[in-house]
């Protein structure tokens, strides 16, 4: 059973996120073309490419999880631009703040990290709520489920993430039938219905990468 993640775990996860994003670059861009301006995959890829480049220059042994995540946040803020830049920038920055100085985090801390990350997104997004067809529709149920799991006194990170990811996936899928209320898709009004939100999708891919790594680590024992 996995009960904590350390600096090196988080480092590896971010590297894998970058890889997942590059492989889904066209897909995310296509989703954005349907209801936005067709750049979400390109934006995310530009950010995570720089994030990994910066991470590679870090001395991992002398870094904590906060440093890793702050490096990611700064890279995203620096080159992503658009809506996704500040949204994910604040997401990782808030996570970093919680993890500051920590070389290891348990389920409780991870939950707080994601909770604060979500809050960062909601705040900079102008008070974004679930149901507005954004990345919040993925992140919010994920965090809610994680909180539930952590509250039930569980330490099992893999189990908690498995359940939270399911909630996140449902949230992502639910965006298909929503009318967008925030972001560029909201200009389309009812025409936005029938399309999955690109940001909700990239959030899901990021969360899934966390879970896939944890599961892999667990199976390796």
């Amino acid at each position, binding site marked *: 059973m996995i009960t904590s993640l350390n600096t090196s775990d988080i480092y590896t996860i971010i590297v894998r996120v970058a890889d997942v994003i590059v492989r889904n670059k066209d897909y995310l861009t296509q989703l954005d073309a349907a209801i936005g*301006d*067709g*750049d979400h995959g*390109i934006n995310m890829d530009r950010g995570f490419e720089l994030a990994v480049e910066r991470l590679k220059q870090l001395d991992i042994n002398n870094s904590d999880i906060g440093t890793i995540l702050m490096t990611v946040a700064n890279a995203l803020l620096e080159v992503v*631009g658009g*809506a996704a830049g500040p949204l994910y920038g604040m997401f990782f920055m808030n996570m970093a703040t919680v993890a500051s100085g920590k070389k290891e985090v348990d389920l409780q801390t991870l939950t707080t990290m994601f909770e604060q990350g979500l809050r960062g997104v909601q705040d900079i997004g102008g008070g974004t709520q679930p149901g507005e067809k954004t990345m919040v529709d993925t992140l919010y149920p994920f965090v809610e489920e994680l909180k539930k799991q952590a509250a039930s006194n569980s330490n099992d990170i893999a189990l908690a993430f498995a359940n939270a990811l399911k909630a996140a996936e449902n949230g992502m899928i639910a965006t298909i039938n929503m009318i967008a209320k925030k972001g*560029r898709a*909201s*200009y389309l009004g009812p025409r936005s219905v029938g399309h999955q939100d690109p940001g909700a999708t990239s959030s899901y891919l990021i969360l899934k990468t966390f879970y896939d790594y944890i599961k892999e680590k667990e199976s390796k024992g």
Partner: protein
Amino acid sequence: MIKKLINTPGEEVREMLEGMALAFPEIIRLDPQWNNVYRAYKKPSYKVALVSGEPAHAGYVGYGMLDAAAAGATFTSPTVPQVLAAIKEVATEAGVLVIIKNYSGDVMNFTSAVKMAQAQGIKVDYVVVNDDVSIAEKEKRRGTTITVLVHKIAGAAAEEGWSLSEVKRVAQKVIDNGRDIGVALTPCSVPAAGKYTFELGPDEIEFGIGIHGEPGVQRIKYIQSKDLAKIMVDKIAEDLGLKKGDEVFLVVQGTGGTPYMEKFVFYRDVRKYVESLGLKVFGSWIGEFMTSLEMQGGRVAILRLDEELKRLLTAPAYTIAVRITGPMTLPVVT
């Protein structure tokens, strides 16, 4: 792939700015670290500095308009540190006015940068342009063509040494009295994506588009220029509550790939219809001021004028895209 006169996709903004700086070194200066464009010549320390975003705005940097344009990737808002760098570069004692277009991304990045600049002791304020009348809810309206008139009018006020709060007041007056609306006959394509942002049938028009190749608020059947002109002008006139005798300024433009011929036919139709409503046309800009790459289509913007706006609108400016050097004196012949 969609053929374009570019090199590696993703490099196009940088290379465009390089071209502009090569062509107009006397007007702009390119900061290669941030893809920011700054006015090339000195400005007085009493002058409020004006900052805006998007590659297109590089054409409006110079005397009488912007001091800095922060260019993001194609159709992407510039980033927080990039905007912050621009603010810091051009800040004067008089302060900085940041002109933000009301797009989620722009608002987030620019307001974050403004907060950081304020935290660093810089005097900075901002306005948000939301002139796109195609969207019903006012707070959601995108910032489009009127942004350029804010650059022009607030820029002239700043050049005259107005205070930050006064420059902001007149900028907000332009926003309150200006509206824009656009249509697309064809889509456009972001180089790095290599795909069109939407597909349109041979008899379809996207009505109420933004400036980043997004689909419009509504898809309508093809109609002629004069019918489009009427619908578009009506939307604006109604929203602004224009009345007979009001004096207005027109901006009639293509969307990047619109030929001259169509711009002038469309202008004719807009102008005739505007005048048929009893409005007085003080002047017009016709051309390409806020475009969406190779998209074919048209935009109409109308600004209601008063004496203050008229004077500032026609004050001198010297940028790549806007040159007003005062009425030319012709040799007198009898």
